[in-house]
């Protein structure tokens, strides 16, 4: 038996171990997430309801509120993180994320546009949930359209100027600033109610999650994760350098363009449904990278799992930290992700 090979396989086992641990934690936190909330359901009850025993009150809470929300958190986190991981590799830039590329800002503009011009957001007061968008799907569609426009601009630039990391990131910054400016302009002319809706929309809140949202999201996130995992060796080749990748037979522009489209669509979907959830796309892949290294074959699926776990924990915390008030999870991810990311920066990004 070859010694080098044995060493490498032991090395691989650590990564499989990490994947396994994340999976177990995910299962545990899904259980905790279902159990915790403004009305606390004992863990034993949760298990019972999930398996056999129907308990009228709790069953309804669990099946129509908790489970869709918890599963949606996992899916949304996975979509954001896996897209972030792919973008970081494609753009050769550790700052690759929906924000660096202006996609989130464009989605926010789309939402603001729908709220103001298509009346998507005249608001009602209803107890604890202060603001309700009266036509969430219209707002989401418009936000999605906005992020598609941003993606289109980035891809056009890639087509004309080549999909180099510099072009992509600089274009992203420009796109982000333009859409932020446009949103600010809309806000300036909006009335109080519209302004409240716009701001509320940008918070990033999974409270809007329904079973239908979850199914749409899962229908996108799972294939996207599989797509990126399937392509992970191409991304490894990109990590080695453009010329090396080409000499290994990788079609650079095709891999980059397709990867960008897929990643943009996935993040656009999440942002348009739930608003801006910061830091998951940026920080989750970096945390995984620090633990298991940059081999994309592991990084990509592990980022998806870890991102799901991260957002699930953040959302569970958001629902319980100052219960009965439910915080928008976007605030939590920023509070959790910001310091964690700073810590990573201080420890040094593992970059050549």
């Amino acid at each position, binding site marked *: 038996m*070859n010694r080098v090979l044995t060493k490498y396989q032991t090395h691989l086992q650590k990564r499989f171990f990490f994947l396994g641990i994340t999976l177990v934690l995910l299962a545990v936190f899904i259980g905790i997430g279902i159990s915790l909330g403004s009305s606390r359901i004992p863990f034993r009850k949760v298990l019972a309801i999930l398996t056999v025993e129907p308990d009228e009150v709790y069953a309804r809470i669990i099946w129509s509120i908790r489970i869709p929300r918890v599963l949606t958190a996992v899916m949304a986190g996975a979509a954001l993180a896996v897209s972030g991981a792919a973008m*970081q590799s494609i753009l050769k830039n550790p700052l690759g994320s929906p924000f660096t590329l202006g996609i989130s800002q464009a989605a926010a503009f789309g939402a603001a546009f729908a709220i103001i011009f298509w009346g998507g957001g005249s608001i009602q007061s209803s107890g604890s949930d202060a603001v309700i968008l009266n036509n969430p799907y219209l707002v989401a569609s418009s936000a999605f359209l906005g992020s598609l426009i941003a993606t289109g601009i980035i891809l056009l630039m890639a087509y004309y100027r080549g999909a180099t990391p510099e072009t992509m990131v600089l274009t992203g910054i420009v796109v982000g600033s333009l859409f932020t400016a446009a949103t600010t302009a809309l806000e300036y002319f909006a009335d109080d109610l519209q302004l409240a809706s716009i701001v509320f929309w940008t918070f990033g809140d999974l409270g809007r999650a329904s079973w239908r949202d979850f199914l749409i999201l899962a229908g996108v996130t799972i294939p996207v994760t599989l797509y990126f995992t399937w392509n992970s060796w191409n991304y490894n080749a990109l990590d*080695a350098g453009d010329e090396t990748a080409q000499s*290994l*037979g990788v079609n650079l522009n095709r891999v980059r363009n397709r990867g960008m489209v897929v990643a943009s669509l996935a993040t656009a979907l999440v942002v348009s449904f739930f608003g801006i959830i910061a830091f998951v796309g940026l920080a989750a892949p970096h945390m995984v990278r620090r633990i298991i*290294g940059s081999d994309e074959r592991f990084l990509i699926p592990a980022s998806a799992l870890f991102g799901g776990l991260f957002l699930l924990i953040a959302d569970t915390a958001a629902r319980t930290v100052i219960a009965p008030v439910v915080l928008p999870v976007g605030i939590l991810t920023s509070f959790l992700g910001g310091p964690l990311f700073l810590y990573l920066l201080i420890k040094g990004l593992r970059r050549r």
Partner: protein
Amino acid sequence: MKLQVRDLRFAYQSQPVLNQIVLEVETGDFVSIVGPNGSGKSTLLRCIDNILKPKTGTILIDGQNIAALSGTILAQNIAYVPQSEGGGFPANVFETVLMGRKPHVAWSPGRNDLQKTAAVIEQLGLEELALRDLSQLSGGQRQKVFIGRALAQETDLLLLDEPTANLDLKHQLEVLELLKKQTRKGIAVVVAIHDLNLAARYSNKVIMLREGAIFAAGGTEVLNQENIEKVYEVKVMIMKEKDRLIVVPEETAGEQVG
């Protein structure tokens, strides 16, 4: 293996870089491409690997036009080690060499690929470093790893852009000896190289480029006083020591320097 380059021309925008390049490389050849900075050495290598698409001319490998081959097929025939690239995220030695198996593998390497990778790593004497990140290696070790990746590709033709740049003496020799050993196994090696003494010592064919055109080509005898002075604008002294050609630079040829 036979590589034929016929009447190759290449231009960046409208700036001609390569002109009427004709060359042939055969099994077991060690070809050094020499010439001053900007004479087109790297461009030529990139054209041969179809990374840059030439304006006119054809490049044939075993009679097949490389422009018509898919990236994967080409990568099964030609391996290329570029000058050190600023890569993205770091990989370890094993993964880097394993990457050379990419043209032979659909999406994930199998047992056979892992074994071949391990064999290359042993051949290069890098066993102890197998799980180190490239960023933790010295320049010489890293260059060996990149050559390892090219070897794992199992091609009949290896192209290397200045494989000895930035290496200390020992590593320069180690790298070139390693490449020479490959030629004995029937692999053809083409290097762009600055050090004329090393070129003279290891290669059997030398191509001198000057302003994108072949100024002289042939055996090591083309590395003579007259050619070097014209191509490099430097006066040199050539010595023979135990059958070995030694080029000693004397001074710049003042009257020709603009």
